[in-house]
């Protein structure tokens, strides 16, 4: 079986993992006050779905450990895996803007 190098658990069978899709920037009302349904739909549904090197969220099911993997979608090679804090260094602020009175 193909092996996935998990940053927490080392080399494990790839069947122990879930691929949770490409990394995307979530529309944030803290950044852009005009986030509408269309922007949400774009974030939720549209994908690059690239043929080549992609950057994705993966999760090791048994330990619920989430990390980032870079792999090649044509050659099926896993290039690099690393903990999410290599990219996400700051806490994301989800506080919604105040509702006008």
């Amino acid at each position, binding site marked *: 079986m193909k092996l996935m190098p998990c940053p927490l658990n080392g080399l494990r069978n*790839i*069947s122990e993992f879930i691929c949770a899709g490409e990394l995307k920037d979530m529309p944030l009302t803290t950044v852009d006050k005009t986030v509408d*349904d269309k922007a949400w*739909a774009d974030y939720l*549904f549209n*994908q690059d779905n690239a043929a080549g090197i992609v950057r994705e969220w993966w999760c090791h099911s048994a330990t619920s450990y989430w990390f980032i993997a870079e792999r090649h*979608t044509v*050659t099926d090679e896993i290039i690099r895996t690393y903990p999410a804090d290599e990219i996400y260094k700051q806490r994301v602020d989800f506080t919604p803007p105040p509702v006008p009175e």
Partner: protein
Amino acid sequence: MPFGLLKYGLSRRYPAKKHFGTPGDLKSSYDVVIIGGGGHGLAAAYYLAKEHGIRKIAVLEKAYLAGGNTARNTAVIRSNYLTEEGVTFYRESLKLFRDLSNEFDYNIMYSQRGQLTLAHTDAAVRSFRWRAEVNKHLGVQSELIGIDDILKLVPNLNVSADARYPILAGLWHADGATARHDAVAWGYAKGAAERGVEIHQLTEVTDIVSSGGRVTGVETNRGSVSCDVVLQAVAGASSLLAKKAGFRLPIVSYPLQAMVTQPLKPFINPHVSSTQLHCYVHQTARGEVVIGGGSDPYPLYSTRSTLDLKESLLGHAAEMFPFLAQVRLLRQWAGITDMTPDYSPIMGVSPLENYYLDAGWGTWGFKAIPICGKLMAQCIAERSAPALMQPFALSRFDRLEQVNEMGATAASH
């Protein structure tokens, strides 16, 4: 007849006619360029030429005719979906399929043997009841049946209570069928070519040319072509073509693997499928047992096969028909399937004007070839989407109006 055969056996000239010729160089311009020479692209070309009198059409196929998913699918044809939009759409496709051999004057070997889906959980039984009612209401033959009736249809199915997942009930769909997949594509290709459509094989579209939000032509490995309209029907390459056209799609591409065994004497008549086991089995006219299941677990653009998937699929097939464990595999392969989040296709206009989409057919688009071709042709000729295909517009995602067929597609056929 035997004399005729003998005569041709001894003669140097073989009497078989070529279905379509080689069209020579690409013209500099066409009314319609269709990217992708699979069943979908060819059917659209056929109906454009036959029903709308549009004949300056080029079908551009990067490899050989219908060598993509049309050649790789397991040819399950059914209409027992869950949503009203889905059931009505696939029902119309089955109607066209039934008459296709006559229409082409070419045998597509349509064989209505019925389709049986097995439930192993209470949740599945509930969803079968629901599907059966929706189906009957819309004129599609579906009913919930118990073990006795299942055994009448498939006497050698393992219905033992000791199985890992014992069978509780079945959804019997008498309209279910199969057909020779290549013949469907060849029939459309022949009919289209006879009406003047040019089918260019080994012609890859390398770029989409647009200006002011309109498509004006395509670049290929054999030169540039200008055109009024483009139809993209490239199955496992939808996102890649859409990127060239300048937009993204709600699609993720996964390999889907399948296989056949050595030929056996006929022993299963209908198609038998289990959503719980993610496995389905049917026997072809020449006796091979076709085994298919769910897509690969992570996205990929490689049609490699894996032992993991083969092992789990065969384990499940052997649970349904234990004696299959003794049988040898003959061939195995994979295709790239473009999965949408709601397991429904994407048909119609795109963000680029005059650039039409026939995409997101995932693991279930063979059965849709006739109706999709007919509707796409009408959509292009009349510049407006027929009612039957409107629910499947790309814009449904912006409106959060998905057509959820996930449950009815869980065994991927």
